[in-house]
C-alpha cells in the first residue's frame, strides 16, 4: 500500500468508533476544568473525589520523589496544590488513557507492561531533567512521557500480528520503531498517535509530545517546544539505560539532537550540569520507575 493509501485507511479506522475506545467521561471533564484558568481547587476537588482510583493515583504521585515533600501528603486538596492545576489535568489524562488502553487484551502476546515501563521511565526522566534545568513548561513532564508512545498501542490494537513483525524487523535490522512501522504498515506511531490525540481532544502539549517527540523543533508554541524537547532527550536517556521497548538501541549523541539545542536555549543549566553523570545515575532509578508504574496501572 502506498503511504497515502495507508494513511487514508488508518484515518478511517481511527474515526470508526468501534476500533478505538473513547476516553472516560471524567478525563474529558477534567480537561475542560483544568484548561480554564479561572477555576479553583474547590471546583476541581469534587470531580476527582468521584473517582477513588484516580484520587489514589493523584496522592501517589504527590507523594513521589518528584515533589520533594518531606511529610506525607494525605489530603487530596494538599496534593492538588503541590502538583498544580494544569499538571494535574495532564496527569489525570495520562492515567485515564493508560487505564483505557491497558484494559484491552493482548492478542499477539506482546508485553505491554514493558511499553508502560518505558513510557513511565521517559516521564520520570523528563521530570528529573526539568528539575535539574530549573524550568517550568506549564505541563507535566511525567504525563507527557507516559503518553508519548501511545500510537504504538493504537497500532498494535489495529494490527496485532503485524506489530509483532514490526518489533522483530526493528530488532533484526537495528532500525527505529518508526522506520519499521513505515516499512511494514506505511504509517508510524507518531502520526497515528496524533490522530487519536485529536480525536480525544487532548491538550496541545500532549498532542505535541505524541506527534513530535522525535522532532521537537517542529513544535510552534515555545513552552510546548521545550516540554517536547524534554521528552525527546528523556526518551534517549531511557533507552541508554535499557528502559526500552522492542528496540536494540545503539549509539546516540544527545548533544546533536534538536531537543538539546532547544533545552540549552531554555536553560543555562544544561551546559553546567554533568549530563553524563545524570545519564548514568538513571540506572539507580529503574526500581523507582517500575514501582510507580505498577501502582499507577493498578496491578
Amino acid at each position, binding site marked *: 500500500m502506498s503511504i497515502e493509501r495507508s494513511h487514508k485507511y488508518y484515518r478511517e479506522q481511527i474515526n470508526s468508533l468501534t476500533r478505538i475506545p473513547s476516553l472516560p467521561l471524567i478525563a474529558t471533564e477534567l480537561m475542560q476544568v483544568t484548561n480554564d484558568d479561572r477555576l479553583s481547587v474547590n471546583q476541581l476537588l469534587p470531580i476527582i473525589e468521584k473517582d477513588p482510583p484516580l484520587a489514589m493515583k493523584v496522592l501517589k504521585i504527590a507523594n513521589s520523589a518528584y515533589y520533594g515533600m518531606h511529610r506525607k501528603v494525605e489530603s487530596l486538596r494538599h496534593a492538588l496544590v503541590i502538583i498544580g492545576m494544569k499538571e494535574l489535568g495532564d496527569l489525570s489524562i495520562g492515567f485515564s488513557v493508560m487505564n483505557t488502553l491497558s484494559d484491552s487484551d493482548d492478542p499477539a502476546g506482546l508485553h505491554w507492561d514493558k511499553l508502560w515501563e518505558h513510557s513511565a521511565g521517559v516521564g520520570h526522566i523528563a521530570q528529573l531533567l526539568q528539575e535539574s534545568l530549573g524550568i517550568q513548561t506549564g505541563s507535566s513532564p511525567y504525563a507527557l512521557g507516559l503518553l508519548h508512545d501511545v500510537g504504538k498501542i493504537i497500532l498494535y490494537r489495529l494490527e496485532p500480528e503485524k506489530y509483532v513483525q514490526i518489533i522483530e524487523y526493528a530488532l533484526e535490522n537495528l532500525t527505529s520503531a518508526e522506520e519499521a512501522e513505515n516499512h511494514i504498515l506505511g504509517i508510524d506511531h507518531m502520526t497515528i498517535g496524533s490522530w487519536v490525540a485529536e480525536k480525544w481532544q487532548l491538550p496541545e502539549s500532549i498532542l505535541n509530545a505524541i506527534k513530535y517527540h522525535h522532532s521537537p523543533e517542529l513544535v510552534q508554541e515555545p513552552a510546548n517546544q521545550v516540554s517536547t524537547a524534554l521528552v525527546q532527550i528523556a526518551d534517549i536517556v531511557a*533507552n*541508554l*539505560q535499557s528502559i526500552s521497548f522492542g528496540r536494540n538501541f*545503539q549509539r*546516540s*549523541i544527545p548533544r546533536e539532537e534538536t531537543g538539546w539545542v532547544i533545552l540549552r536555549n531554555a536553560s543555562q543549566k544544561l551546559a553546567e550540569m554533568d549530563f*553524563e*553523570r545524570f545519564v548514568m545515575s538513571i540506572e539507580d532509578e529503574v526500581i523507582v520507575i517500575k514501582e510507580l508504574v505498577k501502582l499507577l496501572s493498578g496491578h
Partner: protein
Amino acid sequence: MLLGNKNGRKLSPELFKSLRDLIYDKSGIFFPENKLYLLEGRLGSRLNELGLESFQEYYNHLRRLSVQTEELKKIYSLITINETYFFRYPKQLDVFNKTLFPEMIKERTQAANKRVNIWSAASSSGEELFTLAMMIKETLGIGVSRWNISLKGTDISRRILDAASKAEYGRNSFRGTVSTYYKSKYFTAQGDRFTVNDDIRKMVKFDYLNLNDINTIRQNRGLDFIFCRNVLIYFDKEMKKKVIKAFYDVLNHGGYLLLGEAESLHGVSSAFKVEHFPGAFVYKKE
C-alpha cells in the same frame, strides 16, 4: 590510636603539607587534608627500611636530589591503589569490543592501514590490558597476525609493573564476570593461581610512565584508544586538565578516550564529542 606509631613516626599536619605538595608537584597525585593518615600509614614502612627516625628526616632525605627520583618511584608504588580485575566495567568493554574496535578495523582495512594503537594509561596489575588483548584476539581470530596491534600499558608504580609482567593472578582478579570460555582458553591454572597464556602476553607491553610527565605522554602520538579508567580521581582539576589535554593531542582523529564508570570530563574538557551507548559513554576526538 597511637598503636604502633612511635612519637617520631607521627606525621605532623605541617610536614604532611610539605610532603603532600612535593608528591603533587612530581606526580600530580593530590592528597587532601583528610588523607594524612593514609600517607602516614603507607610511608611508615619506608622509614623502617631506610633506618630513619622521623618523617622530618625522611622529608630531608627526599629533598636530596640525588636520591629523589628513585625514592619517589618507591613512594608511588606505596601510595597508588591497584584495585582492578578482568572484564571490569563490562558495558563499556562491550562498546569497545562490539562497536568501536570493529569499526576501527573496518576503516583501517579500507585504508589498507593495518595498525591500531591502544594505550592503557594506568595499567596497574595488567588485567585491563590483558582483557583488551583477549577480546581483540577473539575479534580478529587467526587474522590477528596480519595486524599490527599495539597494546601498551603504563603505570607509575614499579612494583605493580613487575606484577603485570609476571601475568599471574589470584582469585581477586576474577571477581568480575569472566566466562569459563575465556578462562580456559587464555589462562593456565596452577592451584588457585592463573597465568595468562603466551599468545596473549606477547600482544602487550608494559612500561613506566608518570602521567605528570606530559612531555613523555606527548612522545606517544598516533593513538587510537586511550583507556584511563579510575585514575583521574587522584588528580586535582588542574592536573586533570593538563593530562586530558595531552591525551587529546596524542589521539588520532577518530580516536577514543575511555574513562572509568563514575568518571566524566565535566568541567575538565569540552574538546571531545561524547558518544553514548547502552550503559556507557565514550569520548571521541573528531
